């Protein structure tokens, strides 16, 4: 164990709260007022929430009325996928198909699996290329004439391997056959250009804690013409689609964080890509058989980088991800193996499996993700220990059958 501050290379899990977010939220927490109340305190709370809605909308190319505040990315994904499915099927009972990528986050995957099990949905899995990307051709093929499709969902950028899909092209493809497209942009906002209106998607998931905002605060951007059946019924807040007293302090924090992350995006993305490229080159220099998963570092799509600038996802053949994580953790370096089950058991990543990696490669992988507090010192710290850590993990792996 180390007594110094940990080297945090897990920004894709969550990222430190920005100082200006802390200030804005602390101020708001000290004020009374339900944004639905009619008196002065209520008006003051509502003003704070609506200002935040307007700023967030502007930062993401949406109209304020298209911003629905939620409890975070998981809720937004559930609301979009289930709500659009229910509403579209209600309008036309033939629409029972959901077209979805197998590399989605579990908030989408488990939602569509639930709809298949309990609501009669039929799932069509999209082909993904070896980098994890969904192409317009693959989407068109899966949609067919679209008449029996309720909703399609493709993430903007993958949370594990960082691959970016061309969401504008996918939205156009879906709209060609009259199908709405939802995209999970939790990892994309603040790292690549996300313009809701220009992209044309019908629903977009984002969350606060991946870009310097609070946990438990997110939004679903939902086009005004998109019918969406609510998950939560009650006071009729958020266009009647998401009832519940607005968490004004969290919404204020979410707005401040989004504006800051989007405003500094170009400069920060360049810095993250520089650090990330150093990290990958340094690791491969010391562990020559390490393999980069996902798109190449310099990959591009029409909207910009084809890979999140802060994402480095590497496999270390012969070593197990959980042994590597433990050994790095003991040296004060924090990263991730991708997914763990609710009990904490490391599982082979479903994303790597979806892109055709064998289970051994999936089990031997680590995700290093950089963010707004990352420095050259963080990369140096990793490069200072990675070779002996991999060597030791490989020895530990040999004892297993």
């Amino acid at each position, binding site marked *: *164990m180390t007594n110094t501050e940990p080297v945090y290379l897990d920004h894709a899990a969550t990222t430190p709260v920005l100082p200006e977010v802390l200030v804005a939220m602390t101020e708001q927490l000290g004020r009374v007022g339900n944004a639905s109340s009619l008196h002065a305190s209520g008006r003051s709370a509502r003003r704070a929430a609506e200002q935040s809605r307007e700023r967030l909308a502007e930062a993401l190319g949406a109209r304020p009325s298209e911003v629905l505040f939620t409890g975070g990315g998981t809720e937004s994904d559930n609301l979009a996928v289930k709500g659009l499915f229910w509403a579209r099927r209600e309008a036309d009972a033939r629409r029972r198909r959901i077209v979805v990528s197998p590399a989605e986050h579990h908030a989408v995957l488990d939602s569509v699996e639930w709809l298949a099990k309990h609501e009669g949905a039929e799932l069509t899995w999209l082909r993904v290329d070896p980098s994890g990307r969904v192409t317009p051709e693959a989407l068109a093929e899966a949609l067919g004439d679209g008449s029996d499709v309720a909703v399609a969902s493709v993430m903007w950028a993958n949370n594990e391997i960082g691959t970016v899909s061309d969401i504008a092209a996918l939205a156009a493809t879906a709209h060609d056959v009259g199908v709405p497209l939802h995209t999970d942009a939790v990892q994309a906002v603040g790292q690549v250009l996300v313009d809701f209106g220009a992209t044309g998607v019908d629903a977009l998931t984002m969350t606060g804690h991946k870009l310097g905002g609070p946990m438990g605060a997110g939004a679903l951007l939902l086009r005004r013409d998109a019918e969406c059946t609510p998950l939560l019924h009650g006071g009729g807040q958020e266009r009647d689609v998401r009832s519940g007293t607005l968490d004004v302090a969290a919404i204020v924090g979410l707005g401040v964080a989004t504006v800051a992350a989007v405003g500094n995006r170009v400069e920060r993305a360049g810095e993250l890509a520089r650090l990330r490229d150093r990290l990958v080159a340094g690791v491969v220099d010391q562990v020559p058989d390490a393999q980069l998963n996902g798109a190449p570092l310099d990959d591009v799509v029409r909207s910009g980088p084809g890979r999140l600038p802060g994402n480095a996802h590497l496999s270390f053949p012969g070593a197990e991800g*959980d*042994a590597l*994580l*433990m*050994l790095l*953790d*003991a040296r004060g370096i924090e990263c991730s193996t991708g997914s*763990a*089950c*609710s*009990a*904490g*058991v*490391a599982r082979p990543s479903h994303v790597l499996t979806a892109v055709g990696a064998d289970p051994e490669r999936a089990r031997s992988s680590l995700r290093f993700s950089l963010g707004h507090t990352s420095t050259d010192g963080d990369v140096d710290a990793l490069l200072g220990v990675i070779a002996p850590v991999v060597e*030791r*993990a490989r*020895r*530990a*792996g*040999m*004892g*297993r*059958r």
Partner: protein
Amino acid sequence: MRVLAAMSGGVDSAVAAALAVDAGHDVTGVHLALSPDRQTLRSGARGCCSVEDAHDARRVADELGIPFYVWDLADRFREDVVDDFVAEYEAGRTPNPCLRCNEKIKFTAVLDRAQALGFDAVVTGHHARLAGGELRRSVDAAKDQSYVLGVLTPAQLASAMFPLGGMTKDRVREIAAERGFAVATKADSHDICFIPDGDTRGFLARKLGSRPGPLVDAATGATVGQHDGTYGFTVGQRRGLGVSVGDQQPRYVLGIEPVTRTVTIGTADLAGVDEITTAAATWTGAAPLLPFRAQVQLRAHGTPVGCEVLAGEDGGLVVRLDEVQRGVAAGQSAVLYEPDAERGDRVLGQAAIRLSGKRQGTVRH
């Protein structure tokens, strides 16, 4: 020392980890996920390694401020413990899966991996004393677990720590309560962890299917009934035989013959044995010179009995008991102890029981 604490989520391993931290070791907690289909919540005192147990272990680790991970050993556990358990029953023997788990999982798979990762020792919440390489019974006779540790070798013991052997279970719970551990009042585990409903016969029936055979009375040689599988029986068993023989005397299982699927039963006077033949022995220290006198325990929670230990065939032992014992089942371990009232009986080693019988008027089963 860098120490790996195996944390089940129970009170014993929680306190053992805490004591290792107190002793100044650099401790890392690990919860072993041993079942591929984990229950979300614990059901009663049975079963283990549910998601809730992992949570309980993690809570303690977080309070102790130590790193904590879950290791997925479900495949190894299935191969080395569960499959072995089923195969032993299939062969007409009565295995002890806890002993097998200590031998193959905790002090082989976990210890090997721990050492490869740079740890010096594995600490567990077993109730047994270990000092100077000598394994002894716990001071709490009712909770003593030295029997299921009797299979460990000197090398394994050299990298093991059992901090609870010197205290009673009540004291363990007191320590947990003093530290505010939520598991202080958690129920003790019983039975076999991978059979959470406690129905061993039903578990084996699902694995092995129906394999009917005869129940034969030892005195007359007559077939007195049928059974659905020899795996439903253990030598010494009295209840659940499903037969009644005319004389109303209680009958015991005397022997199980897996090839002909014959279960032999007989009256109490035929059920006793005073000589045991074993498979190759393992020793906790240097192998003792044969023959020697010792005490032997023939099952978990069994009563030790004086014996003379002699060399048998193929590295096995012949154990001559001072008193006739009933219910001596092949597959169980004969764990040998050197009595020591002051420091605790010392475990010398163990050997799996193969045959048992009477020295005079030999009835071999």
